[in-house]
C-alpha cells in the first residue's frame, strides 16, 4: 500500500497535498474499487467546498462511489484529463490521478500518513 508521507488523509480515503492543494483518491481506495471506468467531477472551479460534501463520482467495473471534500476550501482547478483517462486513478492515484485543486484549506482535522496507515491496517489491510 502506497501512502506518501507528506500528504494528509481522510477517513473516506481522500488525500490532500498541503503544498499544492491537490486532492485525490488513495491507493487503498482505488484498490478497493478495482478498475475505474468513469469519473465525473461534480464541482466547478470557483466553488467553495464544504468538508464532507461530494466532489467526484466514480464508477468501477463492480462498484460506484463518491469522493468527498477533505476540507472546507475553494476549488481552483479540476483535472479535466480524468474524464478521458479514468484509469489513471488506478495506475497513478497520487500524481496523474489528482482530481481537484483547492486553496485556503485548514488541514488540522486530517490524518497524517502514519495515522492513515494505521487506519487502513485496522480495516483488514
Amino acid at each position, binding site marked *: 500500500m502506497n501512502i506518501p508521507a507528506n500528504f494528509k488523509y481522510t477517513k473516506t480515503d481522500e488525500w490532500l497535498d498541503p503544498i499544492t492543494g491537490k486532492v485525490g483518491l488513495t491507493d487503498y481506495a482505488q484498490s478497493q474499487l478495482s478498475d475505474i*471506468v468513469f469519473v465525473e467531477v461534480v464541482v466547478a472551479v470557483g466553488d467553495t467546498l464544504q468538508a464532507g460534501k461530494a466532489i467526484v463520482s466514480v464508477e*468501477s467495473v463492480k*462498484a*460506484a462511489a463518491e469522493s468527498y471534500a477533505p476540507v472546507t476550501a475553494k476549488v481552483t482547478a479540476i483535472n479535466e484529463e480524468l474524464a478521458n483517462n479514468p484509469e489513471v486513478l488506478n495506475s497513478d492515484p497520487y500524481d496523474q490521478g489528482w482530481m481537484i485543486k483547492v486553496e485556503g484549506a485548514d488541514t488540522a482535522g486530517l490524518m497524517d500518513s502514519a495515522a492513515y496507515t494505521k487506519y487502513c491496517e485496522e480495516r483488514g489491510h
Partner: protein
Amino acid sequence: MTYIPHSPKERDDMLNTIGVKNLEDLFRDVPEKYRFPNLHLPPALTEMEAATELGELSLGNDNIRTDLVSFLGAGAYNHYIPAVVDHILQRSEYSTAYTPYQPEISQGTLQAIFEYQSLISALTGMEVSNASHYDGATAVAEAVAMAYAQFRGKRTKIVLSPAINPQYRAVLRTYTQDMNLTIAGDTLSVGQIPDSNALINLIDDNTALVIVQYPDFFGRIYDYTALIDAIHARGALVCVAANPIVLGLLKTPGAMGADIVAGEGQPLGIPLSFGGPYLGFFATRKQFIHKMAGRLVGETADNRGQRAYVLTLTAREQHIKRERATSNICTNQGLMALAAAVYLSLLGRGGLRQVAELCYHKAHYAAEKITGIPGYALSFDTPFFHEFSVGCPKPVAEINASLLEHGFLGGYDLGQDYPALRDTMLLAVTEMNTKDEIDALADVLAEVAHA
C-alpha cells in the same frame, strides 16, 4: 434443489425469536375490521368451468384482426406481424423471468439484446441504445431523468411541445412529481411547432431538456434541425419522441442533432393487445452513456478470445449506484425487445422502408378521399406521415358510433385533450388498410355528414 421457504417448525422458531405467539399477532396493528375482510368471492370453478366462463367473456371483445377495421392510432398502431416473430418469441430459450446476469449461461439472450441495441441505434441515427424500457411513455420520461442527471440537478426546467402524445406527458408528470421540476410548454398553441418562438422563448438557463415528437401527435412531420440548433444554443438537451416506422423512410432524429431519441416500439412487430406489453426504446449519444438509465449489453472477448456478450457499465445503475443513479429502473422489456429485433432483422432496411411507404401512400390516399367529402377538412396543411387530423361536421363520438355500427374502429377524438380541436378526428392508416376499406370508410363518413 427443493425450494421450501419455511417449515412449520422454522416458522415457530422465527415467531419465538421475535417474541410473537402466532402469525395473526403480526397483523394486530391493522384495525380488526380491515384484517381479513370477506371478499365475497364465488365458489372456486373447475378448470373446465373457468375455461368456458373466460371464453364467454372474451366473446364480448371486438377484435381488429377479425371483427373491426381499424383507423385508430394515436400512439399504438396496427401493423402486420410476420409469423416468424411469434415463432422465435415462443422458443423456450428466450423465456426467462428476468434479465440475465450470468454471461456464462445467457449468450443467446445477451446477443439478442445487443442486436436489438444495434438495430435501434441504426434506426434512430444515434450512437448507443439501451436494452429498452417498458413503453414509449416511460422511455420519454427517462429522457427527463437523464437530462436532469446530466446537469446534476442544476437545471430543473423541462419544456414540452404541446404536440407530444398527451399520455406521454401525463406519465412524465407522474414520473417526475417529486423532482421539483418546472414543466412548461405543452399548453401552447398547437400551430407550427418548429417555428414556434413561443416554445423557444420558454428555454432559459435553467432548462435541462426540450421534448418534441416526430411525427407529432397530429401526424405532422417536421425537420427539427433548426429548432434543435436553437435549443442547443441555449444550452439545453433535446429529446425527439419518434415513431420507429417513420425512421425507415425519413431523416433520423440523430441526423437532426437530437441528444436523445425515445419512443414506442410497439409498431415493430408487437401486437396492440389492449395496451401492452409494449416496448420503450431509448437511444442517445456516447457522451451521455453514463447518465443513461436501463440495461446495456456490450460485446467483448472471453478468456479464449471468442466473441462474447455481457451486461456492461452496470455501476451506473440503481442496484449499485443506489439513490445517485439516474433512474430506479434497471430492467428491460426483454421479450418485446426481442420481437422488435426479429421484426427489424426480418424486414431489413428495404422492407421497413416499404412498410413506411405503404403507410404514407395509403394515409395520403385516405386523406384525399376524406377531405373530398363536404364538411371534412385537414386541420393542418403541414406534411404528414401515416396519421392526420381532420375537422369533422359532427362530434367525433357521434361519428365513431356510426363507424362502429359499420364495423370500423374510428379515429381518436382530439377534443379530449385539445379543446381548440373540438370535432377533430385523428385518423391512422397503415399497410393493413386496403383501398376498399379506405373507400368504405369514406362512404360512411359521407353518410354521417348528411344524416
